[in-house]
């Protein structure tokens, strides 16, 4: 399958006191929705902050759309093409909605006031029909603030959305809407628009995820198209008497007094022959948990 990238990262390194981000090579595919998955503290936000340019103290090379480097991020052209939402105070707490609109217009040539209003109403950012222009960001709930940021990002013509934990503060209905919005964005781009988002809500986002990157302890533990991962990893269930033998073969295993369940790499499946096991296609959630477990310091 041909794989164009929207961002290519090479030799990205960032050292903290007790943590080291080390990514020799990473391609985020163009025209798809990519999920960044990993434990708390795995380095997801650090990576996103490096890609967005929020954090500038790192080593390594970044290539955007095969045209720009990280040096171009402040030059208008690249900035205009990227939309970002995050957990921090992207909009300052004391800003009013009117100020956000004005500031966005100043910051981005392609910010369209009408579209901002449309999105605010489509996402029901405000309880009434009208936009409450005098309302301050600090008066909004976390979920509403996220909706407002999404409206701000979608009011612009961009080619790439970098979303740090967009689903976390949202309710189930709005998460569903977020998935639709991502699909519409990808469809509208016809192969040119991409979305890269970090998430803990893997199950909620699975149906919109084309490519998954699983990070653990500052490194990329697994990356691939979800359909390929579902062929590489298989969900196995078996009986108690095979626990010990299966434990040596499976990638990850959970046992109970009644049997076991685990993930097996497809190329090791032959070694399970003779055991009474059932084989299922795992969900992205199940694959992610298995990969995370293998690389985690949490004792399960």
């Amino acid at each position: 399958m041909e794989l164009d990238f929207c961002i290519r990262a090479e030799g990205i390194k960032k050292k903290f006191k007790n943590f080291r981000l080390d990514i020799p090579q990473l391609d985020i595919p163009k025209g798809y929705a990519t999920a960044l998955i990993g434990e708390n503290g795995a380095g997801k936000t650090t990576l996103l902050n490096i890609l967005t340019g929020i954090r500038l103290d790192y080593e390594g090379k970044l290539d955007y759309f095969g045209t720009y480097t990280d040096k171009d991020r402040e030059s208008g052209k690249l900035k205009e093409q990227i939309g970002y939402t995050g957990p921090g105070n992207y909009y300052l707490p004391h800003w009013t909605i009117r100020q956000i609109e004005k500031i966005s217009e100043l910051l981005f040539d392609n910010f369209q006031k009408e579209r901002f209003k449309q999105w605010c109403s489509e996402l029901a950012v405000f309880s009434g029909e009208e936009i409450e222009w005098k309302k301050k960001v600090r008066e909004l709930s976390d979920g509403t603030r996220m909706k407002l940021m999404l409206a701000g990002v979608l009011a612009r013509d961009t080619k790439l959305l970098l979303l740090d934990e967009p689903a976390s503060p949202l309710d189930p209905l709005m998460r569903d809407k977020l998935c639709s919005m991502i699909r519409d964005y990808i469809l509208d781009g016809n192969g040119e628009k991409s979305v890269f988002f970090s998430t803990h809500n893997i199950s909620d986002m699975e149906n919109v995820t084309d490519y998954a990157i699983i990070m653990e302890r500052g490194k990329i533990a697994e990356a691939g198209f979800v359909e390929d991962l579902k062929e590489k990893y298989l969900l196995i269930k078996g009986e108690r008497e095979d626990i010990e033998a299966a434990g040596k073969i499976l990638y990850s295993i959970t046992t109970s007094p009644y049997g076991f369940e685990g993930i097996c790499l497809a190329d090791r499946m032959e070694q399970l022959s003779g055991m009474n096991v059932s084989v299922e296609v795992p969900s992205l959630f199940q694959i992610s948990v298995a990969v995370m477990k293998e690389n985690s310091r949490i004792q399960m």
Partner: protein
Amino acid sequence: MKILQNSGIPIYQQIADSFRGEILSGKYQQGEYLPSIRSLARDLRISVITTMKAYEQLEAEGLVTAVQGKGFCVNAQDSEMLREQHMRKVEDALMEAIQSAQIAGLTEQELEQTLHTLLQMKGE
């Protein structure tokens, strides 16, 4: 098209099966394009890569051809070609059976006997 989330059949397989049925029944004519992968993903509320995999399977079966920049175009479905495709499947399956038979140490005669027995059972 109905997509079942927990049927045990992979979603891409369900999509491929559905389009295969429609192509073979003539609902899609030669030269017609399947819906674009991204619009199908949007409409079925699934990921793009899943629809892509479904179409790639149809392409591997020779039912459609990927046209650069335009999508997936339905091929002529003449019976000769379909027969050819099914023939290939039969050969693959038989080859697998032959390999298993060798592992099990079956003689050629025993293998042929097994095939005859199975054919008889199927016929009854």
